[in-house]
């Protein structure tokens, strides 16, 4: 039972209270770059969720059974980024062969995920919080879902922003950042969330 409560706490934390975008500032670049349309935002969010879950699992195994076993913890950053880069490459090749429709839908977003700091961030946080295998995977997937939620909400607001009236200097990124700031303010409300 304890295990389940713990997992639920991790899930809620990753999706709402400690949302990767709004409270940890991880993955801001794709968040701002790929949020002009809701469709592409959804595609990006799903791709990121998938990669984050998979990267958490693979990096946990690599960390436990290779790095820690041979006392190479100082190589973590280099190893993790290489694992993530090759993972993304594999997913790309796999999708191209087996699910071409999904591959075309995700398009250029897949290779971009390598440099998404949310992916490397979640892996490093897993190590820092010394999560076990299941906890790591759950944290990875729910962190990705939090990203998906944030980017879809943000994209739908941005689509409406086109018709809004604001000073010319704020055009483009500034108004997007101010919008994201107000959303972060709203998400701060979740930090009072205590279920248990």
């Amino acid at each position, binding site marked *: 039972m304890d295990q389940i409560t713990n997992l639920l706490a991790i899930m809620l934390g990753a999706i709402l209270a400690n949302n990767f975008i709004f409270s940890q*500032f*991880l993955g801001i670049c794709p968040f701002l770059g790929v949020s002009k349309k809701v469709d592409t935002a959804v595609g990006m969010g799903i791709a990121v969720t998938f990669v984050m879950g998979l990267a958490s699992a693979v990096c946990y195994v690599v960390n436990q059974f290779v790095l820690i076993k041979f006392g190479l913890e100082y190589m973590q950053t*280099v190893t993790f980024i290489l694992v993530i880069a090759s993972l993304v490459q594999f997913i790309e090749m796999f999708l191209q062969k087996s699910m071409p429709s999904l591959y075309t839908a995700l398009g250029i977003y897949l290779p971009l995920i390598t440099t998404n700091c949310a992916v490397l961030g979640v892996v*490093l946080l897993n190590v820092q919080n010394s999560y076990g295998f299941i906890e790591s995977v759950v944290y990875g997937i729910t962190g990705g879902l939090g990203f998906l939620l944030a980017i879809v909400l943000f994209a739908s607001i941005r689509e409406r922003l086109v018709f809004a009236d604001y000073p010319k200097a704020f055009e483009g990124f500034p108004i997007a950042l101010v919008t*994201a700031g107000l959303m*972060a303010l709203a998400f701060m409300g979740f930090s009072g969330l205590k279920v248990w």
Partner: protein
Amino acid sequence: MNLGKQFKEGLITNNPVLVQVLGMCSTMAITTSFFNGLGMGLAVTVILTLSNVIISAIRKIVPDKIRIAMFIVVIAGFVTCVDLLIQAYVPSLATSLGVFIPLIVVNCIILGRAESFSYKNGVAASFFDGIFQGIGYTVVLLIMCIIRELLGAGTFGGGILGPDLKGIQIIPSQFPAGMLTLPVGGFLVLGCLIAFMQWALAKSKNKEESK
């Protein structure tokens, strides 16, 4: 090679944060005290300069197809060195920056400069490009830190100055808007800074056209 032009580009007209809008994560996340901003800025400047030099030196022997992977390995190597050095000599900085030091690997500024500048230019030019872009990044971080610290906590120079290294209290502690030191403040302050930059650039452009 034109040093003056490169310096102006790095600092103002092609500033990595305010104009190219790269490296946002760290810019917003760690700018809560002066010390953090300075440490992060210096770390990124050092890594950017070193990786620019190496990438520019090996640019002719790296096949085009695997260049991104090569860039990342070079950058990750330097980041690991800097990470270990900070942990050894400035442990307080390592704890307050936390996961954001290893995350310099995926800081888009470094990969962006590798791809757009040092992969195409000579070693010396890349070296200065790294320094100037790094300074541009550091300056923006420091401005963000000063604004957020002053308006959010009422202090200046947190982490280096004042009693208990908490900074010098300038605004009495009951007045500041604590919201600015929270994530919200990062988004709002950076948004306003970029807006100011766009306004200033547009104004100077108008002036030149009307001449």
